[in-house]
């Protein structure tokens, strides 16, 4: 009898331990219920602006907003794997479309902000790059985000647009392609590689040239003819624990106060 009891006890405890992760999740979601807590999945390029907006939103609503910043594609993968989120803000429509197709979002997404690309170089400009055409010169160490990351996709589209212009010479796209030395996991990693001086050039969003990055890099503007405008959609997620608060957050992002913060970080506010 005693032995049998022991074994039953073992299985019960084992079961409890296997369910432990679930318990942790529910405990985590529990506090601050009365004021509301919010988890926002947002593109890495929104890091600074959303952190500021989140603090102001929490102050006004006595809520607790947590952020998970990452490459938009990573975030969609995490959502698809059941990661708890209330709001999803993507750096391109493609990832939001995937999220919608996989039934991961509840509301119809709306574009709240736009961004554009810029080329950055280390301050000492080791490869002596003075124009966009120089990026196709042999030996330039170019770092882009991986093609699956929105900014990586936009950067490649921008180079393709340049290649269609005669001024960039023949085979520009292939030459640029050969110069890619690393495909980083998100836009912040690209900015870091250039800031550290490891890469000769990188393509990031204008908003990623934050004050701290700006002290370490030079910028080369990409003319509108080649530049890609990234449109950022935002939506409430399907399994949001607090859809009302999630909608409130989105409304705040779109309010004059939210727009002011985004504009201050270099985003384009769509009219």
């Amino acid at each position, binding site marked *: 009898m005693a032995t049998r009891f*022991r074994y039953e*006890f*073992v299985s019960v*405890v*084992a079961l409890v*331990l*296997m369910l432990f992760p679930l318990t942790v999740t529910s405990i985590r979601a529990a506090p601050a219920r009365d004021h509301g807590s919010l988890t926002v999945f947002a593109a890495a390029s929104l890091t600074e602006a959303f952190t500021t907006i989140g603090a102001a939103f929490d102050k006004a609503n006595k809520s607790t907003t947590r952020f998970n910043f990452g*490459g938009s*594609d*990573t975030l*969609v*993968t995490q959502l*698809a794997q059941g990661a708890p989120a209330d709001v999803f803000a993507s750096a391109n429509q493609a990832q939001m479309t*995937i999220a919608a197709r996989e039934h991961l979002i509840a509301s119809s997404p709306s574009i709240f902000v736009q961004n554009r690309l810029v080329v950055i170089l*280390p301050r000492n400009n*080791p490869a002596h790059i003075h124009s966009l055409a120089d990026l196709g010169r042999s030996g330039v*160490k170019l*770092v882009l985000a*991986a*093609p*699956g*990351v929105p900014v990586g996709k936009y950067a490649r589209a921008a180079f393709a647009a340049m290649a269609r212009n005669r001024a960039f010479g023949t085979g520009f796209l292939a030459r640029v392609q050969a110069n*890619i*030395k*690393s*495909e*980083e*996991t998100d836009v912040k*990693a690209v900015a870091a*590689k250039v800031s*550290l*001086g*490891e*890469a000769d050039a990188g393509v990031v969003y204008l908003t990623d040239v934050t004050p701290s990055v700006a002290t370490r890099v030079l910028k080369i503007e990409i003319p509108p003819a080649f530049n890609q405008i990234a449109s950022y959609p935002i939506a409430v997620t399907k399994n949001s624990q607090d859809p009302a608060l999630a909608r409130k957050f989105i409304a705040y992002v779109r309010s004059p106060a939210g727009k002011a913060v985004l504009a201050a970080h270099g985003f384009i506010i769509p009219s």
Partner: protein
Amino acid sequence: MRLFRSPAGPGVIAGAGRVLVILPATALLLFIGFPLVALLLHTPPGTLWSSLNTQSSLDALSLSLQTTTLTLALTILLGTPTAYLLARRRFWGKRFLDSVVDLPIVVPPAVAGVALLLAFGREGLLGPSLDTLGIHLSFSTAAVVMAQLFVACPFYVRSARAGFIGVDRALEDASSTLGYGSWGTFRRITVPLALPSLISGAALTWARALGEFGATIMFAGNLMGVTQTMPLAVYLNLETGNLDGAVALAVVLVLVSLVVSFVVRLISE
């Protein structure tokens, strides 16, 4: 009952003690085993195979194989003398050196990556000198090997050091008396006696190098066929929504690691 038989005889762990042993053990084994089972069950073998049979997966496999082999060779070449020195010689600051050698085991890989960048990166301490010599490490396969060597070699050095310490000095002395020189003694007595430790250390180093991610992506970047090893490919596949591709490579990594740790167990017993 057989389960609890210990070298000291049956019934050493009994009664309440038995519960105290079996409960945490079951919990821990389930905790480790369950995610691995989930990984193995996620993708059907057919999909797994077709996901592995892509250019990016094959590139990652072959790059991982090449870089870890090189890392292992360098570790044995440089680590064996280091371990011997730390095991046999007494000198000022030895205790400190022991800790330095162990450091990469406890330092987070991301920290290792930053440290490597600040040392060997283009703007790092040695950067300008390397540049003068025409050596460019950033985004090269050499950088991958350096990252692996940095985080993985301590496992071999630790194990080899312990192995050398365990060799009976009397046997070495006898060998010298019989006319073998120090190299002969080392080769014929010391190494064979320490061999289980050397092999298990080498296997651990290889497995750690195979799994290296943080320092690699930071120091070497990520480019297919040049610096994108298997763990990086797993991460990138996951990021780009290619879950099957990620799982396929992950399964290979898990199975290989399982085999390695099993072989190590066989050798060290």
